[in-house]
């Protein structure tokens, strides 16, 4: 039987842990609110942009811009978006598992796969297993800004044009609600006409008719502005999605942890009291027994 003192220590330790997890939950909740506002505000723009682009890619001459090209791709790149910090439940685990599965699928089809990674957690995981990592960005989620998206979008477009990869998939957590995230595998390069957001937006039904499309300034110049911008915006959206999802996941995980700590405290406290009572009873019996003997 453990001593009373060790039980007391244990309870104190649980209480401390509970305080920490509670504080982390609060912090995550506050951050969640902020990142939730950001992603909800940024979504319409990104989706519209996507609609316009997929519309455009149907109509425009694909060779008009290097970023619109469709190549018969043997080289696949997977962009894995994880978080920088842990203690957020299955957030990173889900992403990593899905990515690994996806990479294996690609490899079975005889494609060569490279990874680029956002977030310290994913980097550490894949580095430890020595997977081929082409590019990594770590520690950007603390101060997430559009600059990061410009940086990442720029790098990706540059390598697409260079031919480092022909197809790019992104694996990230989509922010569904504060307590729900969904792992998404999304194709970013090349731009497909039939994307889920494309249909029904930006007048896709009319575009099927084809016909002339006016550009101002001319097509090439316009695409030069539009297409790189599109990738920056998409990168930005994905970063925001992931950030919001991360805080949501952490909040849920810490809420669970706080509750579990509470349960443990209850259990150990009960045990502690029982033990104390037994000790008191035993002492009493000793005293009574001693008094009896003296008679």
């Amino acid at each position, binding site marked *: 039987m453990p001593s009373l003192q060790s039980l007391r220590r244990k309870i104190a330790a649980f209480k401390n842990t509970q305080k920490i997890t509670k504080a982390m939950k609060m912090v995550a909740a506050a951050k969640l609110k902020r990142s939730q506002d950001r992603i909800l505000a940024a979504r319409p723009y990104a989706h519209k942009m996507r609609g*316009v682009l997929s519309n455009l890619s149907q109509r425009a001459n694909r060779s008009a811009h290097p970023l619109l090209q469709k190549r018969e791709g043997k080289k696949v790149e997977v962009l894995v978006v994880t978080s920088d910090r842990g203690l957020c439940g299955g957030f990173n685990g889900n992403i990593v598992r899905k990515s690994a599965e996806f990479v294996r699928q690609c490899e079975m089809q005889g494609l060569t796969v490279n990874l680029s990674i956002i977030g310290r957690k994913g980097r550490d995981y894949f580095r430890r297993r020595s997977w081929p990592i082409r590019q990594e960005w770590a520690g950007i989620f603390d101060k997430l800004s559009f600059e990061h998206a410009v940086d990442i979008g720029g790098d990706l477009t540059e390598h697409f044009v260079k031919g480092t990869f022909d197809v790019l998939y992104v694996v990230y957590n989509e922010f569904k609600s504060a307590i729900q995230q969904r792992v998404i595998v999304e194709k970013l390069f090349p731009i497909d006409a039939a994307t889920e957001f494309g249909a029904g937006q930006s007048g896709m039904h009319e575009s099927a008719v084809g016909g002339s499309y006016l550009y101002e300034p001319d097509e090439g110049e316009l695409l030069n502005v539009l297409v790189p911008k599109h990738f920056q915006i998409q990168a930005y959206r994905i970063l925001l999605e992931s950030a919001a999802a991360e805080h949501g996941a952490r909040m849920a995980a810490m809420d669970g942890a706080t509750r579990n700590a509470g349960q443990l405290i209850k259990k150990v406290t009960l045990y502690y009291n029982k033990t104390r009572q037994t000790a008191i009873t035993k002492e009493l019996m000793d005293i009574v027994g001693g008094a009896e003997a003296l008679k």
Partner: protein
Amino acid sequence: MAGKILLEVVTPEKLLLSQDVDMVIAPGSEGEFGVLPGHCHFLSTLRIGELRYQTDDVWRYMSILWGFAEVTPTKVTVMAEVAEKAEDIDVGRAQQAVELAEQRLQAGGLPSEVRDAQISLEKARLRKKIADRARRGHS
């Protein structure tokens, strides 16, 4: 009136406007263009300027800083980097911004700095102009 056309204005920060209107006039990079319902497909970049739209004989104004617009027969999508409705602009602050930009332009400096100052002056003047117009319109 030959029906309406849906005008949507989005910025990276939010969906600013989604409304059926009679007519839109937007600041294209190669000159202003007007859009009525049934306009043909059209895609244009936008410069710093003023976006006007008319609903039931009332004109409303909006400042646009860069971006582009996609026009289809039934819909105009304006994607601006920065956009503000006229009634949301604070006139006092807009005026201050004009003065600040003018000072910066006078101070001179590196060519890039002068260019920045010119751009911010242009932006500030535009916001001021639109804000003034909105005030006049309301009073």
